Protein backbone atom coordinates (compact mmCIF):
# COMPACT_ATOMS: atom_id res chain seq x y z
CA UNK A 1 0.00 0.00 0.00
CA UNK A 2 1.33 3.39 -0.86
CA UNK A 3 -0.25 6.60 0.30
CA UNK A 4 0.44 9.50 -1.97
CA UNK A 5 -0.32 12.90 -0.70
CA UNK A 6 -0.46 15.46 -3.47
CA UNK A 7 1.17 18.78 -3.47
CA UNK A 8 -0.41 22.02 -2.47
CA UNK A 9 1.47 25.16 -3.15
CA UNK A 10 -0.77 28.12 -3.70
CA UNK A 11 -2.22 29.52 -0.53
CA UNK A 12 -5.58 29.81 -2.21
CA UNK A 13 -5.78 26.03 -2.53
CA UNK A 14 -4.96 25.23 1.06
CA UNK A 15 -7.19 22.64 2.60
CA UNK A 16 -8.42 22.81 6.20
CA UNK A 17 -5.47 20.70 7.32
CA UNK A 18 -3.00 23.16 6.02
CA UNK A 19 -4.95 26.09 7.35
CA UNK A 20 -4.34 24.85 10.87
CA UNK A 21 -0.61 24.59 10.27
CA UNK A 22 1.72 26.05 12.83
CA UNK A 23 4.56 28.19 11.69
CA UNK A 24 7.83 29.01 13.32
CA UNK A 25 10.01 31.27 11.23
CA UNK A 26 12.94 33.44 12.17
CA UNK A 27 12.13 37.00 11.12
CA UNK A 28 15.70 37.82 10.09
CA UNK A 29 15.65 35.25 7.27
CA UNK A 30 13.42 35.66 4.23
CA UNK A 31 13.02 31.90 3.60
CA UNK A 32 9.82 30.14 4.49
CA UNK A 33 8.65 26.55 4.16
CA UNK A 34 5.36 25.44 2.70
CA UNK A 35 4.15 21.87 2.93
CA UNK A 36 0.85 20.25 2.17
CA UNK A 37 -1.01 17.03 2.60
CA UNK A 38 -4.28 16.20 0.89
CA UNK A 39 -5.86 14.74 3.98
CA UNK A 40 -5.67 15.23 7.68
CA UNK A 41 -6.72 11.68 8.37
CA UNK A 42 -5.41 8.27 7.33
CA UNK A 43 -7.45 5.14 7.89
CA UNK A 44 -5.39 2.01 8.40
CA UNK A 45 -6.80 -1.50 8.15
CA UNK A 46 -5.77 -4.44 10.31
CA UNK A 47 -3.62 -6.02 7.57
CA UNK A 48 -1.46 -2.88 7.40
CA UNK A 49 2.22 -3.80 7.04
CA UNK A 50 3.69 -0.31 6.87
CA UNK A 51 3.62 2.28 4.11
CA UNK A 52 5.32 5.36 2.78
CA UNK A 53 3.76 8.76 3.20
CA UNK A 54 4.82 11.33 0.64
CA UNK A 55 4.69 14.99 1.46
CA UNK A 56 5.35 17.77 -1.02
CA UNK A 57 6.60 21.20 -0.18
CA UNK A 58 8.51 24.21 -1.34
CA UNK A 59 10.96 26.79 -0.05
CA UNK A 60 9.65 30.29 -0.49
CA UNK A 61 11.84 33.36 -0.69
CA UNK A 62 14.97 31.32 -1.28
CA UNK A 63 18.30 32.62 -2.45
CA UNK A 64 18.95 31.00 -5.88
CA UNK A 65 22.71 31.20 -5.44
CA UNK A 66 22.60 29.31 -2.12
CA UNK A 67 20.11 26.81 -3.54
CA UNK A 68 22.44 26.11 -6.46
CA UNK A 69 25.26 25.40 -4.01
CA UNK A 70 23.04 22.97 -2.11
CA UNK A 71 23.14 25.05 1.05
CA UNK A 72 19.50 24.37 1.90
CA UNK A 73 18.65 21.25 3.84
CA UNK A 74 15.21 19.98 4.73
CA UNK A 75 14.32 17.56 7.49
CA UNK A 76 10.79 16.19 7.67
CA UNK A 77 9.66 14.28 10.75
CA UNK A 78 6.44 12.40 11.36
CA UNK A 79 5.99 12.48 15.10
CA UNK A 80 3.55 10.05 16.70
CA UNK A 81 1.21 10.81 19.60
CA UNK A 82 3.10 11.82 22.72
CA UNK A 83 3.06 9.98 26.01
CA UNK A 84 5.27 9.49 29.03
CA UNK A 85 7.68 6.58 28.57
CA UNK A 86 9.54 4.67 31.25
CA UNK A 87 12.90 3.00 30.62
CA UNK A 88 13.84 0.26 33.06
CA UNK A 89 17.19 -1.36 33.64
CA UNK A 90 17.64 -4.88 34.96
CA UNK A 91 20.34 -5.85 37.41
CA UNK A 92 21.27 -9.18 38.89
CA UNK A 93 19.96 -9.73 42.43
CA UNK A 94 20.75 -13.12 44.01
CA UNK A 95 21.19 -14.56 40.54
CA UNK A 96 17.85 -13.26 39.24
CA UNK A 97 17.48 -10.41 36.78
CA UNK A 98 15.35 -7.69 38.38
CA UNK A 99 14.29 -4.25 37.18
CA UNK A 100 16.26 -2.06 39.56
CA UNK A 101 16.49 1.41 38.05
CA UNK A 102 14.07 3.34 35.92
CA UNK A 103 13.59 6.75 34.39
CA UNK A 104 10.43 8.28 32.98
CA UNK A 105 10.65 10.72 30.10
CA UNK A 106 7.95 13.30 29.67
CA UNK A 107 5.80 13.44 26.55
CA UNK A 108 7.96 11.67 24.00
CA UNK A 109 6.52 10.64 20.63
CA UNK A 110 5.56 6.97 20.49
CA UNK A 111 6.80 6.82 16.92
CA UNK A 112 9.16 9.03 14.98
CA UNK A 113 9.95 8.78 11.32
CA UNK A 114 12.58 11.03 9.89
CA UNK A 115 13.39 11.92 6.32
CA UNK A 116 16.08 14.38 5.28
CA UNK A 117 18.12 15.66 2.36
CA UNK A 118 21.21 14.04 3.90
CA UNK A 119 22.28 12.52 7.20
CA UNK A 120 20.88 14.82 9.87
CA UNK A 121 24.16 14.77 11.81
CA UNK A 122 25.94 16.45 8.90
CA UNK A 123 23.27 19.10 8.31
CA UNK A 124 23.91 21.24 11.38
CA UNK A 125 26.08 21.26 14.51
CA UNK A 126 24.88 19.07 17.38
CA UNK A 127 23.99 22.06 19.55
CA UNK A 128 21.75 23.47 16.81
CA UNK A 129 19.99 20.11 16.32
CA UNK A 130 19.52 19.69 20.07
CA UNK A 131 18.02 23.19 20.21
CA UNK A 132 15.49 22.37 17.51
CA UNK A 133 14.97 18.85 18.85
CA UNK A 134 15.13 17.24 15.42
CA UNK A 135 16.75 13.89 14.70
CA UNK A 136 16.55 10.66 16.69
CA UNK A 137 19.74 11.60 18.55
CA UNK A 138 18.39 15.03 19.39
CA UNK A 139 14.81 14.37 20.43
CA UNK A 140 13.93 16.11 23.70
CA UNK A 141 14.00 13.56 26.51
CA UNK A 142 13.10 15.34 29.73
CA UNK A 143 13.10 13.12 32.79
CA UNK A 144 10.19 13.50 35.16
CA UNK A 145 9.74 12.50 38.77
CA UNK A 146 12.70 11.50 40.92
CA UNK A 147 15.78 10.62 38.92
CA UNK A 148 18.63 11.04 41.39
CA UNK A 149 21.62 13.22 40.56
CA UNK A 150 21.13 12.74 36.83
CA UNK A 151 24.45 10.91 36.44
CA UNK A 152 22.74 8.08 34.57
CA UNK A 153 20.64 10.37 32.39
CA UNK A 154 22.76 9.78 29.27
CA UNK A 155 22.66 6.02 29.79
CA UNK A 156 18.86 5.94 29.94
CA UNK A 157 18.46 8.37 27.03
CA UNK A 158 20.73 6.24 24.86
CA UNK A 159 18.87 3.07 25.86
CA UNK A 160 15.52 4.70 25.01
CA UNK A 161 16.64 5.78 21.53
CA UNK A 162 18.28 2.42 20.83
CA UNK A 163 15.19 0.44 21.91
CA UNK A 164 12.84 2.66 19.92
CA UNK A 165 15.03 2.38 16.84
CA UNK A 166 15.56 -1.38 17.08
CA UNK A 167 11.83 -1.86 17.66
CA UNK A 168 11.08 -0.01 14.42
CA UNK A 169 9.19 2.80 16.14
CA UNK A 170 11.88 5.35 15.35
CA UNK A 171 13.16 5.35 11.79
CA UNK A 172 15.34 7.57 9.67
CA UNK A 173 15.87 7.89 5.97
CA UNK A 174 18.78 10.15 5.04
CA UNK A 175 18.05 10.99 1.43
CA UNK A 176 14.30 10.67 1.82
CA UNK A 177 13.87 14.33 0.92
CA UNK A 178 14.57 15.10 -2.72
CA UNK A 179 14.35 18.32 -4.68
CA UNK A 180 12.20 17.77 -7.75
CA UNK A 181 12.66 21.25 -9.16
CA UNK A 182 14.53 24.30 -8.01
CA UNK A 183 12.78 24.82 -4.69
CA UNK A 184 10.17 22.12 -4.83
CA UNK A 185 10.78 19.04 -2.72
CA UNK A 186 9.28 15.67 -2.02
CA UNK A 187 9.68 13.97 1.34
CA UNK A 188 9.00 10.30 1.95
CA UNK A 189 8.42 9.28 5.54
CA UNK A 190 7.77 5.73 6.62
CA UNK A 191 4.66 4.74 8.54
CA UNK A 192 5.76 1.68 10.54
CA UNK A 193 3.49 -1.38 10.69
CA UNK A 194 3.03 -0.67 14.39
CA UNK A 195 2.03 2.96 13.76
CA UNK A 196 0.14 4.16 16.84
CA UNK A 197 -3.43 5.35 16.69
CA UNK A 198 -3.90 9.04 17.31
CA UNK A 199 -2.82 12.48 16.19
CA UNK A 200 0.57 12.60 14.53
CA UNK A 201 2.38 15.75 13.47
CA UNK A 202 4.23 16.20 10.20
CA UNK A 203 6.99 18.67 11.02
CA UNK A 204 9.27 20.08 8.33
CA UNK A 205 12.45 22.00 9.19
CA UNK A 206 14.52 24.17 6.89
CA UNK A 207 18.24 24.64 7.49
CA UNK A 208 20.41 27.11 5.62
CA UNK A 209 24.08 26.33 5.74
CA UNK A 210 23.78 24.58 9.09
CA UNK A 211 21.46 27.15 10.65
CA UNK A 212 17.83 26.38 11.44
CA UNK A 213 15.59 29.03 9.94
CA UNK A 214 12.06 27.79 9.50
CA UNK A 215 9.62 25.12 10.59
CA UNK A 216 6.17 24.15 9.48
CA UNK A 217 3.88 21.58 11.08
CA UNK A 218 0.66 19.88 10.02
CA UNK A 219 -1.49 17.52 12.07
CA UNK A 220 -2.27 14.06 10.70
CA UNK A 221 -4.78 11.77 12.35
CA UNK A 222 -4.08 8.07 12.05
CA UNK A 223 -7.13 5.99 12.81
CA UNK A 224 -7.05 2.25 12.67
CA UNK A 225 -10.11 0.49 11.36
CA UNK A 226 -11.35 -3.08 11.34
CA UNK A 227 -12.55 -5.58 13.89
CA UNK A 228 -9.28 -5.75 15.87
CA UNK A 229 -9.30 -2.02 16.46
CA UNK A 230 -13.00 -2.10 17.35
CA UNK A 231 -12.26 -4.70 20.03
CA UNK A 232 -9.27 -2.73 21.25
CA UNK A 233 -11.34 0.47 21.43
CA UNK A 234 -14.04 -1.35 23.39
CA UNK A 235 -11.42 -2.73 25.81
CA UNK A 236 -10.20 0.80 26.53
CA UNK A 237 -13.27 2.99 26.17
CA UNK A 238 -16.00 0.64 27.43
CA UNK A 239 -13.86 -1.41 29.77
CA UNK A 240 -16.58 -2.49 32.19
CA UNK A 241 -19.12 -3.72 29.59
CA UNK A 242 -16.20 -5.36 27.78
CA UNK A 243 -15.29 -7.26 30.95
CA UNK A 244 -18.91 -8.31 31.52
CA UNK A 245 -19.15 -9.47 27.92
CA UNK A 246 -15.92 -11.50 28.25
CA UNK A 247 -17.43 -13.29 31.26
CA UNK A 248 -20.77 -13.91 29.51
CA UNK A 249 -18.94 -15.36 26.52
CA UNK A 250 -17.02 -17.70 28.82
CA UNK A 251 -20.17 -18.76 30.70
CA UNK A 252 -21.95 -19.41 27.42
CA UNK A 253 -19.01 -21.42 26.02
CA UNK A 254 -18.82 -23.55 29.15
CA UNK A 255 -22.57 -24.09 29.26
CA UNK A 256 -22.79 -25.00 25.54
CA UNK A 257 -19.91 -27.43 25.95
CA UNK A 258 -21.69 -29.18 28.81
CA UNK A 259 -24.83 -29.44 26.64
CA UNK A 260 -23.02 -30.72 23.55
CA UNK A 261 -20.85 -33.23 25.39
CA UNK A 262 -23.44 -34.33 27.90
CA UNK A 263 -23.10 -38.03 28.62
CA UNK A 264 -25.78 -39.94 26.76
Amino acid at each position, binding site marked *: MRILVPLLLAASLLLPAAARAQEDTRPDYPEKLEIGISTDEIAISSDFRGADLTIFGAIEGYDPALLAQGKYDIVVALEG*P*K*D*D*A*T*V*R*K*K*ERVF*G*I*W*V*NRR*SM*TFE*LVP*ESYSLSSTRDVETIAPTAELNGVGVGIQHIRLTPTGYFGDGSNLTE*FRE*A*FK*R*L*KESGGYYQRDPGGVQFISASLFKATVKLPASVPNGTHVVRAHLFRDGVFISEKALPLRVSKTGIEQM*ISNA*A*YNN*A*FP*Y*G*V*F*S*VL*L*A*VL*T*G*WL*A*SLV*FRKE
Partner: protein
Amino acid sequence: MNIFIILGMGAAVGFLSGMFGVGGGFLITPLLIFYNIPPVVAVATGANQVVASSMSGALSHFRRGTLDVKLGTVLLLGGLLGATAGIWLFSLLRRIGQLDLVISLLYVVLLGTVGTLMLLESIRALRRAANNQPVSLRRPGQHNWVHRLPLKMRFKKSKIYLSVIPVVGLGFCIGVLTSVMGVGGGFIMVPAMIYLLRIPTNVVVGTSLFQIIFVTAYTTIVQATANHAVDIVLAFILMVAGVIGAQYGVRVGQKLRGEQLRALLALLVLAVGVRLAVDLVATPSDIYSVVSEGVYR
Protein backbone atom coordinates in the same frame (compact mmCIF):
# COMPACT_ATOMS: atom_id res chain seq x y z
CA MET B 1 0.11 -14.42 16.95
CA ASN B 2 -0.71 -17.66 15.18
CA ILE B 3 -4.28 -18.86 15.79
CA PHE B 4 -3.33 -22.52 15.29
CA ILE B 5 -0.66 -22.39 17.98
CA ILE B 6 -3.17 -20.86 20.40
CA LEU B 7 -5.75 -23.49 19.43
CA GLY B 8 -3.18 -26.22 19.96
CA MET B 9 -2.19 -24.81 23.33
CA GLY B 10 -5.81 -24.61 24.47
CA ALA B 11 -6.59 -28.11 23.24
CA ALA B 12 -3.48 -29.63 24.85
CA VAL B 13 -4.13 -28.00 28.21
CA GLY B 14 -7.83 -28.87 27.94
CA PHE B 15 -6.90 -32.49 27.22
CA LEU B 16 -4.66 -32.62 30.30
CA SER B 17 -7.25 -30.94 32.48
CA GLY B 18 -9.91 -33.41 31.36
CA MET B 19 -7.57 -36.33 31.92
CA PHE B 20 -6.51 -35.28 35.43
CA GLY B 21 -9.55 -33.30 36.51
CA VAL B 22 -7.58 -30.10 37.02
CA GLY B 23 -8.56 -26.63 35.78
CA GLY B 24 -5.48 -26.04 33.68
CA GLY B 25 -5.13 -22.33 34.40
CA PHE B 26 -1.72 -22.95 35.96
CA LEU B 27 -0.48 -24.30 32.62
CA ILE B 28 -2.24 -21.86 30.25
CA THR B 29 -0.71 -18.70 31.72
CA PRO B 30 2.95 -19.87 31.62
CA LEU B 31 2.46 -21.24 28.08
CA LEU B 32 1.10 -17.86 26.96
CA ILE B 33 4.11 -16.17 28.57
CA PHE B 34 6.46 -18.55 26.69
CA TYR B 35 4.62 -17.52 23.53
CA ASN B 36 5.61 -13.89 24.24
CA ILE B 37 2.15 -12.75 25.29
CA PRO B 38 2.76 -9.98 27.86
CA PRO B 39 2.34 -11.49 31.36
CA VAL B 40 -0.28 -8.83 32.19
CA VAL B 41 -2.47 -10.09 29.36
CA ALA B 42 -1.63 -13.77 29.97
CA VAL B 43 -2.81 -13.58 33.58
CA ALA B 44 -6.03 -11.64 32.95
CA THR B 45 -6.91 -13.74 29.90
CA GLY B 46 -6.11 -16.93 31.82
CA ALA B 47 -8.66 -15.97 34.48
CA ASN B 48 -11.27 -15.43 31.76
CA GLN B 49 -10.52 -18.85 30.24
CA VAL B 50 -10.93 -20.55 33.63
CA VAL B 51 -14.53 -19.25 33.83
CA ALA B 52 -15.41 -21.36 30.79
CA SER B 53 -13.43 -24.45 31.77
CA SER B 54 -14.97 -24.54 35.29
CA MET B 55 -18.48 -23.90 34.05
CA SER B 56 -19.38 -27.36 32.74
CA GLY B 57 -17.92 -29.07 35.80
CA ALA B 58 -19.82 -26.83 38.20
CA LEU B 59 -23.07 -27.39 36.27
CA SER B 60 -22.81 -31.17 36.56
CA HIS B 61 -22.08 -30.94 40.31
CA PHE B 62 -25.03 -28.60 40.68
CA ARG B 63 -27.30 -31.08 38.91
CA ARG B 64 -26.07 -33.93 41.09
CA GLY B 65 -26.39 -31.79 44.19
CA THR B 66 -22.77 -32.32 45.23
CA LEU B 67 -22.30 -28.64 46.00
CA ASP B 68 -22.61 -26.85 49.36
CA VAL B 69 -23.92 -23.41 48.38
CA LYS B 70 -23.64 -22.03 51.92
CA LEU B 71 -20.03 -23.13 52.32
CA GLY B 72 -19.31 -21.97 48.77
CA THR B 73 -20.74 -18.53 49.55
CA VAL B 74 -18.51 -18.11 52.63
CA LEU B 75 -15.49 -19.20 50.55
CA LEU B 76 -16.59 -16.82 47.83
CA LEU B 77 -16.75 -13.91 50.28
CA GLY B 78 -13.09 -14.49 51.11
CA GLY B 79 -12.33 -15.05 47.42
CA LEU B 80 -13.80 -11.71 46.35
CA LEU B 81 -11.87 -9.88 49.09
CA GLY B 82 -8.70 -11.71 48.05
CA ALA B 83 -9.21 -10.97 44.36
CA THR B 84 -9.74 -7.28 45.16
CA ALA B 85 -6.53 -7.17 47.19
CA GLY B 86 -4.77 -9.16 44.47
CA ILE B 87 -5.75 -6.78 41.69
CA TRP B 88 -4.63 -3.84 43.79
CA LEU B 89 -1.29 -5.60 44.25
CA PHE B 90 -1.20 -6.46 40.53
CA SER B 91 -1.69 -2.81 39.52
CA LEU B 92 0.90 -1.64 42.05
CA LEU B 93 3.49 -4.16 40.83
CA ARG B 94 2.77 -3.19 37.25
CA ARG B 95 3.30 0.49 38.06
CA ILE B 96 6.68 -0.11 39.67
CA GLY B 97 7.77 -2.49 36.90
CA GLN B 98 8.01 -5.65 39.01
CA LEU B 99 4.88 -7.47 37.80
CA ASP B 100 6.53 -9.79 35.26
CA LEU B 101 9.15 -10.81 37.81
CA VAL B 102 6.62 -11.52 40.59
CA ILE B 103 4.38 -13.55 38.25
CA SER B 104 7.34 -15.67 37.15
CA LEU B 105 8.61 -16.12 40.71
CA LEU B 106 5.17 -17.16 41.98
CA TYR B 107 4.83 -19.65 39.14
CA VAL B 108 8.27 -21.12 39.79
CA VAL B 109 7.40 -21.62 43.48
CA LEU B 110 3.89 -22.92 42.76
CA LEU B 111 4.76 -25.26 39.88
CA GLY B 112 7.90 -26.44 41.66
CA THR B 113 5.96 -27.31 44.82
CA VAL B 114 2.92 -28.85 43.15
CA GLY B 115 5.08 -30.77 40.66
CA THR B 116 7.37 -32.17 43.35
CA LEU B 117 4.50 -33.20 45.64
CA MET B 118 2.67 -34.87 42.76
CA LEU B 119 5.79 -36.67 41.62
CA LEU B 120 6.54 -38.00 45.13
CA GLU B 121 2.94 -39.07 45.59
CA SER B 122 2.81 -40.94 42.29
CA ILE B 123 6.17 -42.61 42.94
CA ARG B 124 4.82 -43.84 46.30
CA ALA B 125 1.68 -45.08 44.59
CA LEU B 126 3.72 -46.87 41.91
CA ARG B 127 5.85 -48.57 44.58
CA ARG B 128 2.73 -49.67 46.43
CA ALA B 129 1.29 -51.09 43.25
CA ALA B 130 4.56 -52.92 42.56
CA ASN B 131 4.56 -54.45 46.07
CA ASN B 132 0.90 -55.38 45.69
CA GLN B 133 0.00 -53.43 48.81
CA PRO B 134 -3.61 -52.30 49.06
CA VAL B 135 -4.04 -48.55 48.79
CA SER B 136 -4.84 -47.42 52.31
CA LEU B 137 -7.37 -44.64 52.40
CA ARG B 138 -6.02 -42.65 55.30
CA ARG B 139 -8.96 -41.62 57.41
CA PRO B 140 -8.38 -37.98 58.26
CA GLY B 141 -8.35 -37.33 62.01
CA GLN B 142 -11.51 -35.88 63.43
CA HIS B 143 -10.19 -32.57 64.74
CA ASN B 144 -7.20 -30.28 64.44
CA TRP B 145 -6.38 -26.67 65.43
CA VAL B 146 -8.71 -25.37 62.73
CA HIS B 147 -11.68 -26.75 64.62
CA ARG B 148 -10.89 -24.85 67.80
CA LEU B 149 -11.32 -21.43 66.12
CA PRO B 150 -14.31 -19.25 67.11
CA LEU B 151 -17.18 -17.92 64.89
CA LYS B 152 -18.52 -21.36 64.14
CA MET B 153 -21.24 -21.96 61.60
CA ARG B 154 -23.24 -25.02 60.69
CA PHE B 155 -22.96 -26.21 57.05
CA LYS B 156 -25.82 -28.68 56.69
CA LYS B 157 -24.96 -29.99 53.25
CA SER B 158 -21.39 -30.81 54.27
CA LYS B 159 -22.61 -32.08 57.67
CA ILE B 160 -19.94 -30.01 59.36
CA TYR B 161 -19.80 -27.40 62.14
CA LEU B 162 -16.86 -25.14 61.33
CA SER B 163 -15.40 -21.72 62.09
CA VAL B 164 -15.79 -19.26 59.18
CA ILE B 165 -12.27 -17.85 59.78
CA PRO B 166 -10.30 -20.61 57.98
CA VAL B 167 -12.93 -20.78 55.22
CA VAL B 168 -12.79 -17.04 54.49
CA GLY B 169 -9.00 -17.16 54.88
CA LEU B 170 -8.67 -19.99 52.36
CA GLY B 171 -11.00 -18.19 49.95
CA PHE B 172 -8.94 -15.02 50.36
CA CYS B 173 -5.63 -16.75 49.51
CA ILE B 174 -7.16 -18.41 46.45
CA GLY B 175 -8.64 -15.04 45.37
CA VAL B 176 -5.19 -13.42 45.50
CA LEU B 177 -3.75 -16.29 43.41
CA THR B 178 -6.57 -15.95 40.87
CA SER B 179 -5.99 -12.26 40.29
CA VAL B 180 -2.18 -12.29 40.38
CA MET B 181 -1.57 -15.58 38.55
CA GLY B 182 -4.70 -16.15 36.47
CA VAL B 183 -5.43 -19.57 37.96
CA GLY B 184 -8.63 -20.99 39.42
CA GLY B 185 -6.69 -22.41 42.34
CA GLY B 186 -8.62 -25.69 42.63
CA PHE B 187 -5.40 -27.70 42.89
CA ILE B 188 -4.66 -25.89 46.18
CA MET B 189 -8.22 -25.41 47.39
CA VAL B 190 -9.31 -29.05 47.06
CA PRO B 191 -6.48 -30.57 49.18
CA ALA B 192 -6.82 -27.71 51.71
CA MET B 193 -10.55 -28.34 52.07
CA ILE B 194 -10.07 -32.08 52.51
CA TYR B 195 -7.05 -32.19 54.80
CA LEU B 196 -7.25 -28.85 56.62
CA LEU B 197 -10.97 -28.17 56.93
CA ARG B 198 -12.00 -31.86 56.93
CA ILE B 199 -14.85 -31.21 54.54
CA PRO B 200 -16.40 -34.41 53.13
CA THR B 201 -14.83 -35.21 49.76
CA ASN B 202 -18.14 -35.60 47.91
CA VAL B 203 -18.93 -31.84 48.12
CA VAL B 204 -15.35 -30.52 47.89
CA VAL B 205 -14.92 -30.40 44.10
CA GLY B 206 -18.36 -28.96 43.36
CA THR B 207 -18.05 -26.33 46.09
CA SER B 208 -14.57 -25.26 44.99
CA LEU B 209 -15.77 -24.97 41.37
CA PHE B 210 -18.67 -22.80 42.59
CA GLN B 211 -16.18 -20.45 44.25
CA ILE B 212 -13.78 -20.53 41.26
CA ILE B 213 -16.42 -19.49 38.72
CA PHE B 214 -17.47 -16.40 40.63
CA VAL B 215 -13.96 -15.35 41.63
CA THR B 216 -12.54 -15.76 38.11
CA ALA B 217 -15.57 -13.94 36.65
CA TYR B 218 -15.10 -11.09 39.12
CA THR B 219 -11.34 -11.00 38.40
CA THR B 220 -11.96 -10.89 34.65
CA ILE B 221 -14.30 -7.91 34.97
CA VAL B 222 -12.02 -5.97 37.33
CA GLN B 223 -8.90 -6.77 35.25
CA ALA B 224 -10.70 -5.59 32.11
CA THR B 225 -11.83 -2.38 33.85
CA ALA B 226 -8.66 -1.52 35.76
CA ASN B 227 -5.87 -2.83 33.54
CA HIS B 228 -7.50 -3.32 30.10
CA ALA B 229 -5.64 -6.60 30.11
CA VAL B 230 -8.28 -9.13 28.97
CA ASP B 231 -7.85 -10.26 25.35
CA ILE B 232 -11.30 -11.55 24.49
CA VAL B 233 -10.25 -13.11 21.16
CA LEU B 234 -7.33 -14.97 22.73
CA ALA B 235 -9.53 -16.08 25.63
CA PHE B 236 -12.28 -17.30 23.30
CA ILE B 237 -9.91 -19.39 21.17
CA LEU B 238 -8.43 -20.94 24.32
CA MET B 239 -11.89 -21.66 25.76
CA VAL B 240 -13.25 -23.37 22.68
CA ALA B 241 -10.12 -25.47 22.16
CA GLY B 242 -9.98 -26.16 25.90
CA VAL B 243 -13.52 -27.45 26.38
CA ILE B 244 -13.20 -29.72 23.34
CA GLY B 245 -9.77 -31.00 24.41
CA ALA B 246 -11.12 -31.69 27.89
CA GLN B 247 -13.78 -34.08 26.56
CA TYR B 248 -11.16 -36.26 24.89
CA GLY B 249 -8.93 -35.97 27.95
CA VAL B 250 -11.70 -37.39 30.14
CA ARG B 251 -12.17 -40.38 27.80
CA VAL B 252 -8.45 -41.18 27.61
CA GLY B 253 -8.05 -40.66 31.36
CA GLN B 254 -10.69 -43.29 32.09
CA LYS B 255 -8.81 -45.92 30.08
CA LEU B 256 -5.29 -45.37 31.37
CA ARG B 257 -3.61 -46.16 34.67
CA GLY B 258 -3.68 -43.26 37.12
CA GLU B 259 -0.24 -43.44 38.77
CA GLN B 260 1.83 -43.27 35.59
CA LEU B 261 -0.32 -40.44 34.25
CA ARG B 262 0.10 -38.50 37.47
CA ALA B 263 3.86 -38.94 37.30
CA LEU B 264 3.81 -37.65 33.73
CA LEU B 265 1.74 -34.60 34.64
CA ALA B 266 4.09 -33.95 37.56
CA LEU B 267 7.08 -34.02 35.21
CA LEU B 268 5.31 -31.65 32.81
CA VAL B 269 4.47 -29.22 35.63
CA LEU B 270 8.09 -29.35 36.83
CA ALA B 271 9.38 -28.76 33.29
CA VAL B 272 7.25 -25.63 32.90
CA GLY B 273 8.48 -24.39 36.30
CA VAL B 274 12.13 -25.05 35.38
CA ARG B 275 11.75 -23.24 32.08
CA LEU B 276 10.38 -20.16 33.90
CA ALA B 277 13.21 -20.36 36.44
CA VAL B 278 15.80 -20.52 33.65
CA ASP B 279 14.29 -17.40 32.06
CA LEU B 280 14.66 -15.58 35.39
CA VAL B 281 18.32 -16.49 35.79
CA ALA B 282 19.53 -16.33 32.18
CA THR B 283 21.11 -13.08 31.06
CA PRO B 284 18.43 -11.17 29.13
CA SER B 285 19.15 -10.15 25.54
CA ASP B 286 18.68 -6.55 26.61
CA ILE B 287 18.83 -5.34 30.18
CA TYR B 288 16.85 -2.24 29.27
CA SER B 289 13.16 -2.12 28.42
CA VAL B 290 10.80 0.70 27.57
CA VAL B 291 7.06 1.03 28.23
CA SER B 292 4.58 3.69 27.32
CA GLU B 293 2.80 4.88 30.45
CA GLY B 294 -0.54 5.33 28.67
CA VAL B 295 -1.42 8.39 30.77
CA TYR B 296 -2.40 10.44 27.75
CA ARG B 297 -4.06 7.65 25.89
